């Protein structure tokens, strides 16, 4: 089975424009989640991790969503030495809502079909991917993954599978989403938003914070990257239980973890750290704790990065996987912000202070609406 190496990676977030900038901030305990007063998103102030208003205002040619994608992919291509025009290279885009802000922006909401075909066409996820591919000169048609909050992990694993199948040599996997009135009002309608900074796995957790970011990872099977971190295995499952609530037992996420470990050839005892989804809703964290316990990982150091970045939706799996890559490079597990007192029925080893420990294999998990779960093993 081919080794799939990580060639380059980027996190473009409110905390920084590169993976290194982001991790330096995280080491200092800086959180992107802050009080926000943004009338274009919500009437009342809220907590979220947002870019400064106007960060993308100078560019009339591209929407904010498109600019985030371009910035993140551009940084990895500059450092990776990858040729987008190689016909053995594929671009994979992970997003949930893409350019949905076009419904809310411009004179007369330019994304609405009654206001012209161009805006409506630009709203489709496929057109964002094509724009990005054209911008950098990718020759293959880009692939778009849109599978709720597991999109980012699924996109990385799709890249891994496409390379292992022999179809491509290199995959550039990018994810992004922005915080809009559309998304904010939806999560608010579910009463899923926390009144303060989110508190994954804590007794007092009361919901998520939203966040916006883009992130990119470049994968290759080429032997010149031997020694780099590897994507070793992964799997998706479905709860088959409820479209907006997770499994009551966690068995299905546990099954995804078990399949990931099997593909990676790892026993649970080999896993040094779990980067959980940890949204800080009552039901997600309870389900995830049960699943991690069922998978035999109850004693493994766990964190949720949602307290730093908020829930970045289609970018989350990428952002959090890349933080895990950097965690392994530095053998440093970051504390999980917001956690004080255990609030799940099967207590996990939640990191509350920086943990310096050698890490050979780590696990990333994600779950989302539609009952979807994903798990992925990253190895040295």
């Amino acid at each position: 089975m081919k080794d799939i190496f990580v060639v380059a990676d980027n996190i473009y977030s409110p905390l920084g424009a590169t993976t290194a900038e982001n991790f330096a901030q995280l080491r200092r305990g800086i959180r992107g989640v802050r009080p926000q007063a943004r009338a274009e998103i919500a009437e009342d102030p809220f907590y979220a991790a947002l870019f400064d208003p106007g960060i993308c205002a100078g560019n009339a040619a591209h929407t904010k969503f498109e600019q985030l994608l371009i910035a993140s992919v551009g940084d990895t291509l500059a450092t990776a030495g990858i040729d987008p025009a190689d016909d053995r290279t594929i671009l994979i885009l992970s997003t949930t809502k893409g350019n949905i802000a076009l419904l809310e922006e411009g004179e007369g909401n330019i994304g609405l079909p009654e206001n012209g075909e161009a805006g409506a066409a630009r709203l489709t996820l496929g057109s964002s991917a094509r724009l990005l591919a054209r911008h950098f000169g990718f020759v293959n048609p880009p692939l778009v993954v849109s599978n709720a909050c597991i999109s980012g992990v699924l996109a990385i694993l799709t890249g891994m599978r496409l390379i292992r199948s022999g179809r491509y040599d290199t995959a550039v996997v990018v994810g992004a989403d922005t915080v809009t009135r559309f998304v904010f009002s939806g999560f608010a309608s579910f009463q899923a938003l926390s009144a303060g900074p989110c508190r994954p796995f804590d007794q007092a957790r009361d919901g998520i914070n939203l966040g916006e970011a883009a992130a990119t990872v470049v994968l290759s099977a080429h032997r010149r990257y031997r020694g780099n971190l590897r994507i070793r295995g992964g799997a998706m499952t479905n709860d088959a239980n409820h479209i907006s609530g997770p499994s009551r037992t966690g068995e299905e996420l546990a099954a995804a973890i078990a399949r990931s470990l099997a593909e990676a050839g790892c026993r649970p005892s080999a896993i040094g750290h779990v980067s959980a989804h940890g949204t800080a809703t009552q039901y997600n964290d309870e389900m995830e704790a049960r699943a991690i316990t069922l998978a035999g990982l109850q004693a493994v150091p766990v964190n949720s990065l949602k307290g730093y970045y908020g829930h970045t939706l289609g970018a989350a799996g990428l952002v959090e996987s890349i933080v895990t890559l950097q965690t392994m490079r530095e053998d440093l597990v970051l504390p999980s912000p917001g956690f004080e007192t255990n609030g799940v029925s099967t207590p996990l080893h939640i990191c509350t202070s920086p943990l310096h420990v050698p890490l050979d294999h780590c696990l990333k998990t994600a779950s989302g609406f539609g009952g979807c779960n994903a798990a992925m093993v990253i190895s040295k």
Partner: protein
Amino acid sequence: MEYITASCVIRDREIRQNGQLVLRQPGAGLADFLLAAYQHFGAAYPKFYKMDPLSKLGWLAAEGLLAGGFAGGPYDGADIAVVLSNAHSSLDTDYRYFSTMSDIASPALFVYTLPNIVIGEISIRHKLKGENAFFIFDAFDPVFTRDYAGELLDRMRARACICGWVDVLAEEYSAALFLVEREAAGPAFTADNMTAIMNLTNNGNA
């Protein structure tokens, strides 16, 4: 070797199960057509009425697809994968949610502003707990679908896979689902065979 052991195609106000025309509603709008199709399958599944058009369409196609059961089954639900794709994501419901969110943001509507919810609805109905993925293409990509689903079966990630296309935007809609199994018989699971099944006409010709 993998085989297409069942298919269900819904478009142009027609439903074809395994190539056979089973329902035709000329002139019907999408909402009326979906309701007629639900009545045709005769399932008592009240949750159907709460679904958005994309989930209704995919759910109906899965009813038609799985009406005859699995050729090589029974399988554990964890061994059945669902891999779907479309062009317009959840845009049809996105517009509807956007037009109502300023007055009353409805969680029952918001949850459908993700394309993979149709996978969730089909999975709940048929207790499918295996691999799932939703991809966006301008048009159905039979080569990618064959390769992705084939990899799941070849690598033993799944023993059966439901794959295909479910797309809705306003009154434009099409669905084509294929059941693919290893331990069975039927047309070979190829891109050409999927395309031919999708394009069957009244004369039965591709």
